[in-house]
């Protein structure tokens, strides 16, 4: 009868080491799937998006977009989805207008010229919030389907 093989101590150490390595790999993979966690006011920023309150309108005759932040969550930026028949483009409001560099604080309002093509049928405004992550301050675009505000032209 052959007595070749590893001793029970080495087998246990190997088993435990393998479990640790596999657990680490699974954890890192899971974290990668989740993406970077951004928080605001001590909670995941996705939850904070539901607290954002703002009014918006587009005055086509004056080519002016007006937004008023009537909530307590500062709106750092605004994503604008401009929809035409058969196509759409997405722009950051700070790139196409005089949106304030520090965003709209509580109670603040914005009114600025935004020139849209004649064929534009509707625009969707989605708030962008500033939160914190492990790597410092980071912006987060709220979910358009849940928190986007539609303006029909």
């Amino acid at each position, binding site marked *: 009868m052959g007595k070749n093989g590893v001793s029970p101590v080495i087998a*246990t*150490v190997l*088993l*435990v080491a393998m*479990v*640790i390595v596999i*657990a680490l790999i699974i*954890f890192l993979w899971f974290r990668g799937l*989740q993406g970077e*966690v951004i*928080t605001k*006011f*001590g*909670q*995941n920023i996705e*939850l*904070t998006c539901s*607290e954002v*309150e703002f*009014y*918006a*309108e587009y*005055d086509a005759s*004056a080519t002016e977009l*007006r*937004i*008023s932040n*009537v*909530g*307590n*969550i500062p709106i750092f930026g605004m994503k604008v989805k401009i929809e035409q028949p058969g196509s759409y483009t997405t722009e950051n409001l700070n790139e196409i207008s005089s949106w304030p560099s520090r965003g709209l*604080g*509580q*109670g*603040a*309002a*914005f*009114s600025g010229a935004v020139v849209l093509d004649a064929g534009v049928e509707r625009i969707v405004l989605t708030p962008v919030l500033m939160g914190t992550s492990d790597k410092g301050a980071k912006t987060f675009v709220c979910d358009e389907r849940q928190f986007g505000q539609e303006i029909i032209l």
Partner: protein
Amino acid sequence: MIGYVLLVSLAIVMAGLLYAWLSGWIPKDIPDCPEGTSLMVKDYTYDCTNQRIFLTIANNGRFGVGGYFIKATTKENQTVATTDLATPIILQDNGEDVAIFENSVVIGPPNENRFLPNNETPNVFDLSSIGQQIYRVDIVPARWQKEDNRLRYIICGEDSTLKEKVTCTT
């Protein structure tokens, strides 16, 4: 023995990581004004010639208020008021201690909701810097509220927004 120690410590570490990740998903109480916080424009005089508006603002709610955000529309068909009136307010000695704080009008000493139910405050706004007629004023009450032992100035939001149409009276 070593196996048990490693297993238990691994479980603790994983539980800690899971807790840290999940705790971010617990909704925190975002401070909000109590239901029944409300202001009204009791009376107004809009002097279009001299571009001044006199507003008598009353607290018709059930709670004290620390101040208010005030904005105006400058076009007849405008629905979102964006012209700030807090800055053009004329601070006058009318017995009320009024100040400007973060684009809002603070009534009474800061950190206190001193504008109590049934109180009134007469405020004058110089509109010459706006240079246009105004058609509506939107007033949103604000309150000082303690949150996690921190005093915050809270805007009362959509539910408490007062929209008052104004026309020239003189």
